[in-house]
């Protein structure tokens, strides 16, 4: 039914993990069911809503679309890996909290991961660049205004810190 199992070695949030599973399973299911990382959410299951956004070798991907077999030897960051080890929120997480850039919170892990990827690629985005980048992350609660503000605030804060 699910084919033969393989051993896949993958670094998740800095820790090396080994999973024995069918390589065809979506990364999303493996993260949530096998590794207990339920911060990455399942919404549409077809790569449209962005709730399952993760970073694979720093690239923003939808975990529902990627077969886990492709992860062997690669590096994955999920929302659980963004805060520092002592629990200090990342600039993006802190800005989301201060700006009230969430309501129900189901899309928030994906939004935060997507915004993190944007700022890694483009540390000083314009509001329009933020809106375009975040197009792949649906939010039904906020109307996106507070999310855009939070991403811009996080970018400004990160620049101040590094200056």
């Amino acid at each position: 039914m699910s084919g033969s199992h393989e051993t896949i070695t993958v670094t998740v949030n800095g820790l090396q993990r080994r999973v024995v599973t069918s390589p065809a399973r979506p990364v999303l299911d493996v993260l949530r069911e096998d590794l207990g990382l339920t911060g990455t959410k399942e919404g549409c299951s077809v790569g449209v809503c962005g709730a399952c956004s993760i970073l694979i070798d720093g690239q923003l991907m939808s975990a529902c679309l990627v077969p886990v077999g492709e992860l062997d030897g690669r590096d994955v960051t999920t929302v659980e890996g963004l805060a520092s080890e002592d629990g200090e929120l990342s600039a993006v997480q802190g800005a989301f909290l201060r700006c009230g850039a969430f309501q129900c919170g189901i899309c928030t892990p994906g939004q935060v991961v997507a915004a993190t990827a944007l700022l890694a690629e483009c540390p000083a985005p314009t509001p329009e660049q933020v809106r375009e980048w975040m197009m792949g992350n649906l939010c039904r609660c906020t109307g996106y205004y507070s999310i855009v503000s939070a991403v811009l605030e996080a970018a400004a804060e990160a620049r101040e810190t590094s200056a």
Partner: protein
Amino acid sequence: MTAAVPFAQPEVRHEGHLKVTGQARYTGDHYPDGVLHVACLASPTPHATITRIETRAARETAGVHAVLTGADIGDVRFGRHLRDLPVLATDRVRFIGQRVAAVAAETREAAEEAVRLIEVDYDDLPPVFDPRQALTSDAPVLHPEAAGYLTMRGGTRELLEHLNLQGDLLTGHDPEEMERAFEAADRVFEHTFRTPRQHQGYIEPHGALVWFEGEVCHVISTNKAPFTLRSHMAAVTGHPAEKIDVYNRFIGGDFGGKGFSIDEFVCFYLARATGRPVRSVMSYVEELSGAGPRHAAEITLRTGVTRTGVFVAHSADVVFDGGAYAAGKAAADLVPHGGLDTMSAYAVPATRHRLRTVYTNSVPGGHMRAPGEVQAVFAGETHVDLIAEELGLDPLELRRRNLRGADRVADGAATVAEEVLSRAAAGVDWTATRSPGRGVGIAVYRRKGGAGRGGVVLRALDADRFEVVTGAADQGSGTVTMIARVAAAALGVDESCIEVIQQPTAVAMFDQGAGASRVTRVLGAATLLAATDLRKMLAEAPRFPIEVAREAEAPRAEDSHAFGAVSVEVEVDVETGQITVLSAVLVADTGTVINPLSHRGQLEGGFAFGLGAALMEELPVEDGQVLAGSLGDYKLPTAPDMPPLTVVNVGDTEGTGPFGAKPVGEFGNLGVAPAIGNAVARATGVRLRQLPLSAEAVYRAVTEARPQE
């Protein structure tokens, strides 16, 4: 009182840290040991009798623990008020997507595989899809046995003049009075409007986890009203309510849809059959084809107007497509009540409304952010613009002349309604000259809401440590933070001294649940009562720990209302039909704001919700088949779709919530579609009387309106 309250400081959501770090656990995030996954077989046909179900191959599939059909559990039906929807179909299916069988298996894949192996023979019956046709004398009857259907209150349903009627509500003046009122009018205008089915579009689909510990049935689900769910599960399954414990904490979006439970019932029977925890999370295909979308409506409005533009009579005939079951509607008369608000902002001396909901062989209708009212305000506010056009009056001026409360101005000061309307008009520079293809539009409304009952327990652990225990589930509106801030303000302590603890139904006091924009008004009031009393007790004789339990009830939605207005400037590309909203203003008649960020979020998010409904959202159904299969087909607004928005809070009118708060949940979305439609008409001369205002619809209308060459 309000001035001393420290609500000006923006809140930091108490649960915010859990949400931005991914630690907030929603229903679907629970995978207890031994959990089984559910998949359901859906009817492929809109109307048929079931002649045979064969489940042997499914039961023999590796990893499968149970396969249930209607024959196993009997004719068990549920619904928010009328229990007409079978947990699993027994002898008949009435819409494509109706559940016929359910499987619990070790993995989701095994459950889905088993579902594919179930064989069902159907004997097709004639379907009916058009509500008007369903009301004719020779239409196929969907529910011949309707007389025996039970309601959640225990009785049977009232039978209406046609078996295909779900609900038929008539209110207002009697026909003779209406006739006289219309006779006094100089002109009478009649227009018909259509609005489509639309889906709530929360990112978290419906889901449930059910398990038994001895006789106690535990439930974690996406239902936003845990106590209501508990009583419904007891009524439907016969399991005693005191042995059902519901613990719903985080809900990933609601917008009206999460009051309607579906998975909980099937999980109950599968958990009982297997002795294992059973988890069901709907796929988005199931969501779109069976989770209770907004009712499609056909609305005919008739208004009598004097020569000077004063409304003297108004009647509305609203026909909602109820779909195959009435189960998704919570009100006893089984109509989306907001349909009464076709002229909500205006003082009209004679009105009469008829709202009907009709059975058809389509996906059952449910509640979606201001049910019925979204449809009514689109129709009403487009109707008012059409009247202005035909009378040659400025649509702003026609609205001003008829606003509710306008006759109560003694000293010439503007009423709140006038101020709301004027600020919206000023916000888009109403009188400015505009280039061709551009135009402004406006809509005004009055929203009622907030009725319900609920309680909290407030406990003082010491002088600066307090706990509030609530059974409320938070669907995102900021309930926990609101309770903490009300408690802190009433106790006169810092917000950091308050911890709000969400508890299951077995522990917490009754709460009616999130819905009808009631949470702040009701649970806020209960918290205020508890905190005020506790403060008095502590002042008289300090001792710790000490606790008080208080309940509040807001009996009538009518006691709490607020005016709102939306104005927009649009640009229309007549070659493609594309509408660009250049700017928008949302004006709210706001009482005391307890959570400023969340309040703003509700207004901005409400506007976005209205924008989607106005421009792009439609759940297309053809011969009973929902044609949108994913969130890729059912398009929701994305970040680049959002125009610059100005939110204006006006008026210092006091609401009936704690410290003078007013409901805001079902508010920001109401006026967006008519404001945009009205702007498009002024920009192009083309008037659309149906939603969505898609580029295709605009293009078609513009092309048809062009003189033939």
